[in-house]
C-alpha cells in the first residue's frame, strides 16, 4: 500500500546558462506518492511549473532504469542521493519523510561545466575514452564462446570494472574533483582481459595523461567508491597506478611509434 509524503521542501539550484551565477530556489511539494522515483517527483514539480507558466527545472535523464549513466544530481550533499549503489533515477521517495528539506545541486567540477540548472556537460569523460578506452582490432563476426580461455576470477574482476556507466558520481563526490575511479575502471576493464593486452601500456599512459588535463588528483579518501552506483572498488585506481608506472618504465609508447 502506498503512502504519501506531504509538504516536501525542495531547494533546487537554478542557473539559466553556463555563464549565469545561479542560485537556489525554494519549492514546496504538497503531496507525492512514496512509490514515485526521485525523477518522477521532479517531473511532477515541472508539470506544476509549466502550469504556472514558469520554466521547468532542467535535469539529465534517459533510461530511468539505472544503467545509462545519464542522471546525476547532488542530493542532500550526496551524489545520487542517500541510497548506496543506486542511481538518482532508481532512488525512490520512500527514502524521504514528510516535511523533509531536499537540497538538489548539479555535479560541480571544472571539467563538468553546467549547461543549465542541474544539467552538466560530461564530455571530458569522452575525451578520456577516446584516448584509449577501446581495443583496436578487426573483430569480424561474433567468435565462439570460450574461444579465448579466461580464468573466472579475472573475468569477474573485469566485469566488475566494466559495470561503470560513466555517470560522473565519482568526480562529483571526490573532494578533489578527480576522475581516477572512472579512468581506473575503464583501464582495468580492458587491461585485465587477454584482448586488452596488446595496447595495455599505451592505453594506460594515454588515458591517465588525458585525465590529467581535466581533473583533480586522487588523495585516497574513498568517497568515489561510496558514491558509485555500480559499487566499483578503488582497487581499480591502484591497478591504474601500477600499470601507469609499468608503462612509463617500459616506455611502450615510444616503441609503438617506431
Amino acid at each position: 500500500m502506498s503512502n504519501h509524503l506531504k509538504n516536501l521542501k525542495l531547494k533546487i539550484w537554478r542557473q539559466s546558462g553556463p555563464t549565469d551565477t545561479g542560485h537556489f530556489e525554494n519549492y514546496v511539494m504538497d503531496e507525492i506518492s512514496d512509490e514515485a522515483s526521485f525523477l518522477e517527483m521532479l517531473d511532477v514539480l515541472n508539470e506544476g511549473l509549466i502550469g504556472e507558466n514558469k520554466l521547468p527545472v532542467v535535469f539529465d535523464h534517459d533510461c530511468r532504469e539505472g544503467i545509462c549513466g545519464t542522471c546525476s544530481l547532488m542530493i542532500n550533499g550526496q551524489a545520487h542521493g542517500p541510497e548506496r549503489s543506486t542511481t538518482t533515477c532508481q532512488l525512490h521517495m520512500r527514502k524521504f519523510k514528510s516535511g523533509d528539506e531536499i537540497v538538489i545541486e548539479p555535479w560541480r567540477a571544472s571539467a563538468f561545466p553546467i549547461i543549465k540548472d542541474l544539467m552538466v556537460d560530461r564530455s571530458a569523460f569522452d575525451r578520456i575514452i577516446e584516448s584509449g578506452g577501446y581495443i583496436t582490432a578487426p573483430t569480424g563476426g561474433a567468435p565462439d564462446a570460450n574461444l579465448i580461455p579466461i580464468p573466472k576470477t579475472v573475468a569477474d574482476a573485469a566485469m566488475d570494472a566494466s559495470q561503470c556507466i560513466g555517470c560522473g558520481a565519482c568526480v562529483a563526490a571526490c573532494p578533489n574533483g578527480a576522475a581516477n575511479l572512472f579512468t581506473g575502471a575503464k583501464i582495468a576493464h580492458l587491461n585485465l582481459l587477454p584482448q586488452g593486452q596488446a595496447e595495455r601500456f599505451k592505453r594506460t599512459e594515454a588515458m591517465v595523461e588525458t585525465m590529467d588535463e581535466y581533473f583533480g588528483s586522487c588523495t585516497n579518501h574513498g568517497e568515489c567508491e561510496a558514491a558509485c552506483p555500480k559499487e566499483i572498488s578503488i582497487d581499480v585506481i591502484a591497478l591504474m597506478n601500477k600499470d601507469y608506472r609499468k608503462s612509463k618504465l617500459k616506455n611502450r609508447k615510444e616503441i609503438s611509434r617506431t
Partner: protein
Amino acid sequence: MAQTTMKRGPVSGTAIERAARRRRPFLIDLYSTAVGKKYVMAITGIGLLGFVLFHMIGNLKMYMGQSDLNHYAHFLEKLLYPILPEKAMLWILRGGLLTMAVLHIHAAYSLTVLNKQARPVKYQSERDYQVASFASRTMRYTGVIVLLFLIWHLLDLTFGAGSVNSYVGTKDTEGLKDVYGAVAFSLNRVPVAIFYVLANIALGTHLFHGVWSLFQSLGWNNPRFNKWRRAVATSFATIIVVGNVSFPIAVLAGVVG
C-alpha cells in the same frame, strides 16, 4: 563568481588530434602527471616514515640514561668514520631527508593547486561525506603543523639557536655533547612540552591516512594483504605517537632529566 571556469582546454567538441607530448627525461616526465606526483609523495613518504621510526627508537635511549643517549648521538656524528670525515655521513643523510621533505611538500602543494582548479566553484550546499576520514581530509593542515614543528624542533635541539635552547652544546662529564641534558632542558618548559605533544598528535593523524594511502598510490593492491593495510597504518601511527609523546611526559614527571 563565475560558474564555469575552463582553464584547461575546452571540454566539448570532437576528438582533436593532440600533438604528441614532448618526451622529457623519465623522472621529470613521470612527475609531470598527478599520478606520478603521487608516486613521489608515496616514495618520499616511505623515506620520511623510516626517519620518524628510527628517530623515535633512538630517542628511547633516554630511558637508559644520560650516558647511553649521549653515546648514541656521538655514534651518529661518527657514522662511517674514519672512512668518511666526522659528521660527513650525518650530513649526507640530512641532505637526503631534506630532499625528500622538499619533494613531498612540493608535490603536495602542486596537487592541492590542481585540485582547487578542478572544482573552482564549490558545492553551495553542505556536503555529506560518507567515508572520508578526519585524517584524510586534514592531511594538508596536519602536514603544515608537522612542518612548523620540525622547524622549531631543529632550532631547539639540533642547532640550539641562541635563546631557543641555550643548553645545547654543553658537554657532559665524559666530554660528549650532553643531548640528554638538552632534551630535559627543552621539555621541562611546559609550553614547549604541550607544543611537542600536539605536533605529535598531528603527525600521528597524518600517518594514519598517509601510511594507508601510500599503498594505493604505489599500486600495491593485492586481495591477500589489502585487509592488513589499515592495521599497518593504525599501528605505525600509534607506535610513533605513543613513543614520541612519552618523552615530554617522562621529562615533566621527572623520570628523565
